[in-house]
Structure formats: C-alpha cells, structure tokens
C-alpha cells in the first residue's frame, strides 16, 4: 500500500504538473528524516511529527516548484534533468545533516494479529489502513472538490483551464505539493517500521516507476493496482521463491506489458 501512495503522488505530479520527478524518492526520505528529527531531537509526539513532516515536505515541494520547475515547466526532459539534480542536492543535504548512519524509530503500535498461520504486526495493519484512508481522501479531493476538479481540468487541457479562470501556476504548485506530501507521509509512517537512510529513496523510486509502468503512466487507478501487483509479487515471491522474487517481478511486469503495453490502465502512445 505504501508503493500505491508513493506512486499516486508521482502520477499526480506527472499528470498535472507534467514533471517527471526523479526526486520523488527523496521527498519520501525527507518525510522520514523530518519525522525522525521531530521525534528524536525535539521529542514531539510521533503522530504530530508525521503531520508536521507532511507540512514541511509540502512547503519544500512548493519552494522547489516555484524556484526550479516553474521556469522550465513544459519541457519534460529539462524537468527530468532538474529533478535529478534536485535529488542529488536533497540527498547530499541529508547526508550532511544526518550523517551516513542508519536511523530508526521505535514501534509506535505493538502487538500483532494472527490470520490463519500468519502473524501480522498491528503497526503494519495500521499503515495499510492509513494508506487506504489517504487514497480514499485523495480520490475525494480529485473528484469532489473544486481544487481536484481544477487539477483534472489542467491535466486535460491547460489552455482551456486557464481560459476558464483557473490559476494554472497555483494548480501546478499545489499538485507538486500534494504529490510530494504523499511521499512525505509515506516516509513518515514507514519510519518506525524500517530504517532511515539518506539513500532510502532510491529503491522506492525504482519500485514506484515499476508501479507506473505496470498500472499505466497517468492513471490513478493504475497506480493503485500497479502498487498492489508489485507489493504482492515481492512479498509472496520471496515466500515461495526466496531471492528469485526479483526475477519473478520482472517476469510479471513483462507478461503484463506484452498484453497491455501501456500498462493495465494506461494508453499506448505511439510516436507519429
């Protein structure tokens, strides 16, 4: 479900703001480190720390949009290159601020639930529930609110949306902030589950791209389904195949792309 949340943010940024954000994994890392710093250094309650971390990441995303992507928006390649540079800067910043050591937060929720013969830790169940709630909230935001409608309008036709009086610059910045905040939230809630390192965004970004490829580049529903396919393949794959699960993942992706070249919910775009 965490893959789903991160990939949804990536899709939102790509779909609305037209930015292929290679720094998305670093916003995830930033969320984790912000939560860690607030919890461990300032001794703020974990849940409040996650909320503040989301705010910090969203503000930073707006700052990045305003001072970097705003000037190059529309040029997908330039935006991608700038996001790679941004990724390097964020990672270096984290390295300087927090060092190279792995960090960790203690579990906030203890106990486990037994389903059949499998024990599921309560904290993971809570993370799954939070992800589901956030995805429902995101769906509501996009479908039922004025902001969501504006985002969809900008995604469909930027010029027509602008002619209708929508402030497109504001929508781009808000899409970037919302997408990155989702990554920050994922980093925050994952902090007590896994270790926190300045490089943690890399593998997550790679898997998010896989989710995008499987689900379809600009489809939110595709992001959800793709995230579940990737997550399940990795988890169950390890259980049955051990270290070969990574190969299984690529086999699954290959099979899906043979039958649905644009991803499960994506469209095939052909060069003319």
């Amino acid at each position, binding site marked *: 479900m965490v893959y789903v949340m991160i990939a949804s943010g990536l899709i939102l940024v790509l779909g609305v703001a037209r930015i292929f954000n290679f720094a998305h994994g670093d916003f995830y890392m930033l969320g984790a480190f912000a939560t860690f710093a607030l919890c461990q250094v300032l001794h703020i309650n974990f849940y409040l720390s996650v909320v503040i971390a989301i705010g910090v990441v969203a503000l930073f995303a707006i700052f990045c949009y305003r001072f970097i992507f705003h000037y190059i928006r529309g040029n997908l390649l330039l935006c991608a290159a700038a996001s790679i540079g941004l990724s390097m800067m964020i990672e270096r910043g984290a390295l300087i601020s927090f060092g190279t050591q792995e960090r960790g937060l203690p579990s906030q929720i203890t106990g486990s639930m037994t389903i059949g013969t499998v024990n599921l830790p309560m904290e993971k169940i809570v993370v799954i529930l939070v992800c589901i709630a956030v995805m429902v909230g995101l769906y509501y935001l996009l479908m039922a609110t004025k902001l969501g409608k504006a985002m969809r309008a900008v995604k469909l036709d930027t010029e027509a949306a602008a002619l209708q009086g929508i402030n497109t610059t504001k929508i781009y910045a808000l899409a970037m902030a919302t997408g990155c905040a989702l990554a920050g939230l994922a980093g925050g809630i994952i902090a007590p589950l896994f270790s926190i390192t300045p490089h943690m965004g890399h593998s997550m970004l790679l898997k998010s791209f896989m989710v995008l490829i499987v689900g379809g580049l600009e489809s939110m529903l595709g992001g959800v389904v793709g995230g579940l396919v990737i997550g399940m393949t*990795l988890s169950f794959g390890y259980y049955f195949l051990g270290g070969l699960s990574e190969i299984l993942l690529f086999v699954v992706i290959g099979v899906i792309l043979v039958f649905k070249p644009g991803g499960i919910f994506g469209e095939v775009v052909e060069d003319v």
Partner: protein
Amino acid sequence: MSKKVCIRYNGLITAFICLALLFLLPLHLQAQSSKDVKVLKVGTTLPLNLGMGVETKKMLEIIVPKFNEAGGITIKGQRYNIDLIIYDDKYSAEGGRAAVERLIHQDKVKHIICQIGSAPIVAGMTISEQEKILVMAGGASERIVGPKNRYTFGTSTTRTSIPPLWMMARKLFPNAKTVVFLSPDDETGKARAKEEKQVAEALGVKVLDVLYYPRDTVDFSSIAAKVKSMNSDIVAYPGASAGTQFGLQLKAMYAAGFKGGQVSGITPQIEEIKSVASNEAIEGLLCKMPETELPSPPALARTIKQDYTNKYGKWSDASLSWIPGWYAFVAALKKADSTDPDVIANLIAETGLDWEMPNGKFTLVKRPDLKNSRYTDTCAEQIYGKFVSGKLTYVGKLSLDEVIGSCEKVFGGKWK
C-alpha cells in the same frame, strides 16, 4: 672611545648573545626533535555508509593520535608517527578497489589496516598483493586468508569465532536440532553462511535452509514469515550488519511469532538495534559481548571507553569490533623492527603474532583446512552474552586455547 666604555659595550653584546642563545636553543632542539620523527603513512578503507564503518573511523581517530602523542613507534632507532588516511569504500567491491588504488598510487601507502567488508577487501587485494602492500584486514571471506596471499592477513575473528559461538549455543540451547540462516547475498554473507553451516552441522544441528537477502533490505516481514513456517529451533544471522538492519530482522522475527533461539556471531550495536526493536524482540539473543560491557571491565577496555565517551559524548560498543587490525599492525611493526612490508609479512607468516587490545588477547593462527600453513588468520578470546530484559548479560568466556581447540575440532588440522 674610552677603554671603559668599550668594555661596557662588549659586556652588553655578550649578554645579548647569551640571552639570544638561551631563547634559540630550545627552539633549535624542538626543531631537531621534530625533524627526527618520521611519518609513516597508513591507509584504511571503511564503509562510511554504515554505522560500523563510521564507528570504526571514530575510534581510529582517537587511538591513532593518542598513539602518536605517546611517542609513536621506534623502529631501528628511528621514531615514527602514524598518519592514517581513511577513504570510504561504500561496502562495495568497486568502492573498495577504487579506494585501495588511491591509497597505493596516490598516497603511496605501504600498509593498509582495519578494512571491514569482504567485498572491498577482496577487490582491493588484487592490487595490494601485486604491489606488495601489507594488509591487515577485517572481513569474513576465506579468500582473505587464502594460501596464495603473501601480504594479506585476516585480523578479525569473524572466520574463527563461529565454532566457539556454536559451542556456546549448544550449551545454551541443548535441545536445538534445527537452524535456519538469514544472510546477506554478498561476499560477507555467503562466506559466513557457508562457514556457519559447516560448523552447525559438525556440532549436530541440521541446517534447514539459508535465506539470502539483499544487503539494503529493510522489510524482513516476508523472510521472517518464511522462517516461521520452517519451524526451526534456532535462527542465526551470519554476516548480518550489526546495527539498525539487524534490529529490523529481530523485530520482524518477533512480529512473525518466532519463538525459538536466536544466535549471532557479531557484536551487536545495542543502541541502534534498540532504536528499532523492542526488548521483547531481542530477548534471549546469544551474541558476542565486548569486554567493555562486562560488569568490571579490564583497564585497557575501561580507558578506551572513557576516551571515546570524552570525545563523542556517548559510548558505542560497535567502535571496537573492527580495530584489531590496528593493534596487530603495531605489534607486527614492533616484532619485525621494520616498516618493510616484505620483512613484516614473512616474519609474522612464519612465526605468528600475538597482541592484546581492549577486546582481549588475539593471536595469528594457521589455516590448514584452507591449505594455508602460514600464520594468516586470527583467533581471540571470546566473551558471550545474551539479552535479558533489553540488557546484554554475561553468559561465559572461552580462552584463546579453548577457541583454537574448537576451531581445530570443527575445521581440522593444527592451527598453532
């Protein structure tokens, strides 16, 4: 000018010269003495992306300057201070090779010490052996102590600490019949898993499976679920990192409902582990215990702990695990009375080497099981502890003879 005035001038000039000499003499002596001290460049490559690398660096940055302040080392009447050059090898073969190349060709070092990861050591060895560089490395791979190496010595106890560990594990879990290994799928993990499997089977414990995982894994839930489904009596962690990642493994095992014994050959980084795993998750874990954690530690261990705490504010037991290479190097320089890698390597390979450090007594041993009749690997006294209510408590100690005896029993041949 009258004679009286001339005498007065002469007196003043003489007094001035005497005063000037009085001031200049100590300066001259100081300059002479600093000119007499030579600098011996020594290199190391550490995984600074991991806690164990950072902690080792921090410890080396205490003990090396302290060694120099205490007068350095005198070889053939010449005083030397050590200049330690540290590079990041990122715990990877590419990083290790690049760092070793830089040390040898750019910094012109002739001695490399205290490396940690097997992959960087093995990758760097291809150059260091060719360039006749003395390497006193850590690491776990058997290739480090292979018979073809002439200048590389394994100064960590990772390869020889497994038989004594499992002897202790058999004492602690006498009814255990099966074990599952969780190991990283890199040089270190595979080497340790292979050795630990050999040892466990020699001591009558059946190895159900060795589960490998990528070194950067953070989610161990599916691996833990698989271990749980195998119903083994013990789970062991050959080659695991000592810090947060190890804590995540213990946490996942606990969450999966694993109730068997847990064994680890590494000295755990207690602070890092406890930052992610609860006391319940680490309860009963059998592992190595540093002398500094004993209720009444020996003087050397006490001093080094104090020095570290004074400099960094908080003690980290992980800082000790990978520094035997430094103490071995100093002992080798003293024994050979030479800085020449050829002289040192030949002497210690033929006659052995003993040294003492804050983690106890160490000695070089032969590895007849690896067809190496030279003194090339290291055995050390072993102290074991287990976690009780989140605290590492003393279980027992094995002397140097007992450790060597256990290795000879499992691997065969005469080691000393």
